[in-house]
C-alpha cells in the first residue's frame, strides 16, 4: 500500500510527460495532471496519518512499523524491497507530500519551457524522497537516496537561473561524493554483519547483528559525511549558496524544505540504530559540527543582502539545531529534532515562495536593498510573512519554540556547555529574521519596485501551508505523541538509558 504512495507521483509525472497537447497549452495541461497526482498523494499521506496507530501506552508492536511491505527483491544480493512507516517517517512523508503539492501547484500556475520534462523530474524527485523515507532496507534507502540526485541535477541545471550549470555540477559532485561513500559503507555493513553466510540489508536484521566497534566507526563516518552534505552542515555546505541561488523557486522549496531533512532523518533511521557505539564515540564531533553550523549559519544569514541567501544560511543554522538535538542522544532531543524538522520544512517553504513574490515585485532581484515598503500596500502578503517569520525565529507559542526548547533541554542534560552556546543561536535567529522582514516590508518603497498584493493563485499555495504552521503551533503534541514511541524503539536503548 505504501508502494502506491511512493510511486503515485512518478506515475503522475509520466502521465504528465505523455499527456497529449502541444506547445504552451500542452505544458499547462501537463502541470495540471501533475498537480492532480501530487494532491492525490497528499491525500494519501493525510489518510496515512489518520490511520496511524500512535501506540499510546507504549506496548504496541515491537518494531513500531506499520503498513509493511516486504518483498525479497534481489535475493542474490540480499536486498529486500521492504518499506514501512513509523513515527519517525510519518511526518516526514506528510511534509514531503505537502510541500511537493505546493511546489507543483506553484509550478502549474506558471509557464515552463520544456514543461513535460520539468514535471517528470519534479515527480521523480518526490518518488525518490518518499522512497527514502519509507525504506526499511539499507540498500533500498541508499538507492532512493542517490536517486534523488538525478531529478535535482536536471531541475537546477535546466530550469535554474544564472550560472545554473556550475551550480548543479557542484551540488551533484558534493552530494554524490557523500553518497558513494555511503554506498561503500552500506555494502560493507551488509556483508560484515552477515551471519551464517546470509547477507541481508534489512534494517532490523542489521540492528540485530551489530558490527564490531572499530568497523562501526569508519562506516559511521562515511554515512555521516553523506548526511551532513545533504543537510548541509558547516564544513560541507559549499554547494549550498550556488545551488540555492540558481534553483527555480518550487525546486528550492522542496530542496530546502524536504531534501535537507533526509540527511537528518538518515541519522535517526540509519546511523544511530545501526552504529550505536560509533554514535557515542563521535557524539562530541557531531555536536561541535552542529554548533559551528548554528553560529556560522546565523552570522552569514545576518550579513547577506540576497534574501534567498539569508534563508539559505538560516537553514544551515536550523539544521544545526536539528543535528544538535539528534546527537544529544536523549529522547527529548530527538523528539525536538523531529518536530523541528517538520517545522523547518513548513516555514522555509513559504519563506521561499514569499521571496519569489517579493523578487517579482522588485524587478526580478532578491536583493534586500531593492525591496521594501510592502507592509501597507500588500497587507495579506505581509501578514503571512509575519506569521512565518515569527515561527522561524521560534516565538514562544510557535511549534518551533517547543521544538527548540526540547532540543536545548536534551542537550542541557547531555552536555551543558553546548546548550549554553546553542542558546545564543536562538537569539541570532531573531536578529536575522527581523532584519529580513523589516528590510523587505517596512523600509521605504525602493525605486522601481512595484507594490501589489499577492494574487489568488499565490494564496492557494501559501495559505494552506501557513495554516498548518498555525495548527502545529497550537497543538505540537500531535507530532510529539506519534513520534515518541518510535524514538524509544528506534533509538538504541543502550545509548539512551546508560547515559
Amino acid at each position: 500500500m505504501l508502494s502506491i504512495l511512493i510511486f503515485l507521483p512518478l506515475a503522475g509525472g509520466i502521465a504528465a510527460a505523455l499527456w497529449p497537447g502541444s506547445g504552451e497549452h500542452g505544458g499547462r495541461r501537463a502541470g495540471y495532471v501533475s498537480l492532480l497526482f501530487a494532491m492525490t498523494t497528499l491525500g494519501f499521506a493525510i489518510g496515512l496519518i489518520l490511520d496511524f496507530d500512535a501506540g499510546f501506552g507504549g506496548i504496541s508492536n515491537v518494531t513500531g512499523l506499520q503498513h509493511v511491505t516486504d518483498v525479497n527483491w534481489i535475493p542474490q544480493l540480499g536486498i529486500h524491497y521492504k518499506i514501512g512507516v513509523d513515527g519517525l517517517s510519518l511526518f516526514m512523508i506528510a511534509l514531503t507530500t505537502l510541500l511537493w503539492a505546493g511546489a507543483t501547484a506553484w509550478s502549474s500556475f506558471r509557464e515552463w519551457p520544456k514543461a513535460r520534462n520539468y514535471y517528470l523530474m519534479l515527480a521523480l524527485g518526490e518518488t525518490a524522497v518518499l522512497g527514502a523515507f519509507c525504506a526499511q532496507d539499507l540498500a533500498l534507502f541508499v538507492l532512493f537516496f542517490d536517486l534523488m540526485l538525478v531529478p535535482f541535477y536536471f531541475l537546477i541545471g535546466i530550469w535554474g537561473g544564472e550560472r545554473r550549470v556550475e551550480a548543479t555540477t557542484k551540488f551533484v559532485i558534493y552530494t554524490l561524493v557523500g553518497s558513494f561513500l555511503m554506498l561503500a559503507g552500506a555494502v560493507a555493513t551488509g556483508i560484515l554483519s552477515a551471519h551464517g553466510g546470509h547477507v541481508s540489508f534489512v534494517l532490523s536484521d542489521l540492528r540485530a547483528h551489530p558490527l564490531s566497534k572499530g568497523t562501526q566507526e569508519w562506516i559511521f563516518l562515511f554515512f555521516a559525511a553523506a548526511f551532513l552534505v545533504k543537510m548541509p552542515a558547516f564544513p560541507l555546505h559549499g554547494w549550498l549558496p550556488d545551488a540555492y541561488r540558481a534553483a527555480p523557486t518550487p525546486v528550492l522549496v522542496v530542496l530546502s524544505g524536504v531534501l535537507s531533512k533526509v540527511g537528518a532523518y538518515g541519522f535517526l533511521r540509519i546511523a544511530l540504530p545501526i552504529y550505536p557505539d560509533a554514535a557515542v564515540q563521535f557524539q562530541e564531533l557531531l555536536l561541535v559540527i552542529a554548533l559551528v553550523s548554528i553560529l556560522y549559519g546565523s552570522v552569514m544569514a545576518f550579513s547577506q543582502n540576497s534574501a534567498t541567501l539569508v534563508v539559505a544560511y538560516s537553514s544551515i543554522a536550523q539544521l544545526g539545531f536539528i543535528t544538535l538535538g539528534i546527537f544529544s542522544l536523549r529522547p527529548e532531543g530527538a523528539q525536538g529534532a523531529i518536530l523541528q524538522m517538520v517545522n523547518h520544512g513548513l516555514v522555509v517553504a513559504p519563506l521561499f515562495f514569499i521571496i519569489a513574490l517579493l523578487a517579482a515585485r522588485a524587478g526580478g532581484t532578491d536583493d534586500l536593498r531593492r525591496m521594501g515598503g510592502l507592509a501597507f500596500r500588500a497587507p495579506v502578503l505581509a501578514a503571512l510573512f509575519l506569521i512565518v517569520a515569527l515561527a522561524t525565529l521560534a516565538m514562544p507559542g510557535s511549534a518551533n519554540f517547543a521544538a527548540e526548547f526540547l532540543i536545548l533541554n536534551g542537550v542541557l542534560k547531555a552536555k551543558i556547555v553546548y546548550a549554553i552556546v546553542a542558546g545564543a543561536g536562538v537569539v541570532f535567529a531573531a536578529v536575522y529574521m527581523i532584519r529580513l522582514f523589516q528590510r523587505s516590508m517596512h523600509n521605504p518603497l525602493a525605486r522601481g519596485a512595484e507594490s501589489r498584493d499577492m494574487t489568488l493563485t499565490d494564496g492557494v499555495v501559501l495559505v494552506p501551508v501557513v495554516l498548518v504552521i498555525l495548527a502545529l503551533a497550537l497543538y505540537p503534541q500531535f507530532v510529539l505523541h506519534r513520534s515518541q514511541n518510535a524514538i524509544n524503539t528506534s533509538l538504541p536503548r543502550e545509548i539512551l538509558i546508560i547515559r
Partner: protein
Amino acid sequence: MTAALHAPHIDYAGLSPLLALSGGVCVTLLLGLARGPGTRMLVTASALLTLAAATTLAAWQFGENKSLVEGALRADDLALSLDFVFYAAAACALILSLRDPGTSHASLGDYSALLLTSVTGMTVLAGATNLVTLFLGIELLSIPLYVMCAVDLHRRTSLESGLKYLVIGSVGSATLLYGLAFIYGATGSTDFGPIAHAVGRSGIAHDPLLLTGIALAAAGLAFKASVAPFHQWTPDVYQGAPTPVTAFMAVATKAAAFAIILRFFDVAIHPAKGDWDVALAALAVASIAIGNIGAIGQDSMKRLLAYSGVAQAGYMLAGVVVGTSLGLKSVVFYLFVYLLMNVAAFAVVIARERETVLGDDIEAVRGIGASRPALAWPLTISMLALAGFPGTAGFIGKFFLIEATVQGDFTWLGVVIVIGSMLSLAYYLRVVAAVWMQPGAEPVRATPVMAGGSAEASPTGPRAGGVQLEVVAIAVIAAAAVVAFGIIPSPLLDVASDAARAVFG
C-alpha cells in the same frame, strides 16, 4: 601389443555454436561475391542469422557444463553466458554498420565475415582451458579486428588506427605467448587443470620461471582488456576506427579478455591466489585512476568512452582480484551491463556522426535534449549508468562489485572503486550537461567530411538521412534494458550465478 588408435570423441553438440559461426563465416563470404543492389542487406542478414543460430545453440547448451576436445575447451555456463555478450555486441555492430559510410568501402562480404571470425575467436577464448586454445582464440579474435579498424580506406586515421592496433596487439600477443611458454616450462603442462595442480603444490612466489611466465601472460591479457598501464593504444585506436567497429571492440573484446582473465586467474592459477592478488589489485587501482583521470577533459566522445572503458576494466578487475564465486558473478553481471551501457552510448555517437559534421566531438551532442529526445535519453541513461546512478543496472553492477570486494577482504579496493566513481562524474556529467543544459548547435547536415563523401552516406536524402531508425532503435532498446535491469536485475543475476557455479561449483 595392440596400439589401438582411438579417434577422440567429438561432442558436436558442445561445439555447435562454434560450428555454426564457422559455417556462417563461409556462407557470408560467398554471399558477398554476389553483385547486386541487395547484397549488403543479404550479407548482413546472413551474418545476423548466423549469430541468431549461435545464440540459440548456446542457449540450448546452457547448463550442460562439459569439457570438449580432450579438455582443451569447456562449454560451461561461464563461457556460454559471455558468448551471449559477444553475439549481442556483434549483432549490434552489424546493424550499426548497415548504413555506415566508413565500413562501406570494404567489399561487401568481407566485413561481416571478418566480424564473425572475430566472434568465433572470442567463443574459443571464452571456453579455453588450455594454453594453446587460449592463444588460438586470442589471435583469431585479434587479427580480423586489425583489418576491421583499417577498413575505412579513405580516412588516414582509420588506417593509422589499424596499423597501431596491429603493432601493439602483436606486441601484446608476443608477450602473452612468451609468458605461456614459461608457464608450460615451469609446470610441464598446457592444460589449466594440471597447471592449477602444479601451482597449488609449490606456489608461484618461489619459482622465478613460473612467476615470470605469469607476469608476462598477465601483461599480455591486460593489453587485450586495455587495463592500465597497458592501455595506451585504446584511445587512439578507438578514435580512429569506424565507430561501429569501435563499439564492437569496446564491448566484445573487453568481455572476451575478461572471460579468459577470469578463467586464467580464477581457475588456472587460483590455488596461488595469495601470490598474485595484490599485484592484480595494483593493476586495478592503476586502471581506475588512469582511466578516470584520462577521461576528464576529453572532447572526443570516442576517446572519452575509451578512457571510461579503461576505468571500467579496473572496476571489473577488482572482481577478479578477490577470486571468489561472488567476485566472478559480479564481473559477469557487470559485463552484461557494460554491453548495454556502451552500446547505447556508441549508437548515439554514431547517429550524431551521421547527422552532423562534428564527428564524435562532444559538440555533436550539445543541446540534443531539446532537438533529439530519442537520442538524448539513451545517452543520458548510459552516462548515468556508467557513473553508477541508482535506478540503472550500472548501480546494481557497482553494488555487486563492491559487495564482492568487501566479502573477499579487499574492502580498500571497494573504496577505490567508489573514489573512482566520484572522479568519473566529472566527465560523465559533462556529457549530460552538454545534452540538456546547453543550447544546441545548428543542425548542420552537409556532405560528411569525415567520411570521405561516400555516395551511400545519405541513402534517403538529407532530412530523412538525419534519422537512421535502426541506430536510434538500438540506442533506445539498450537504454531501456539498462533501466529495466536496474529495477529487475534478477534474470541477469541468475545467469551470472550459473556462470559462477560452473567454475566454483
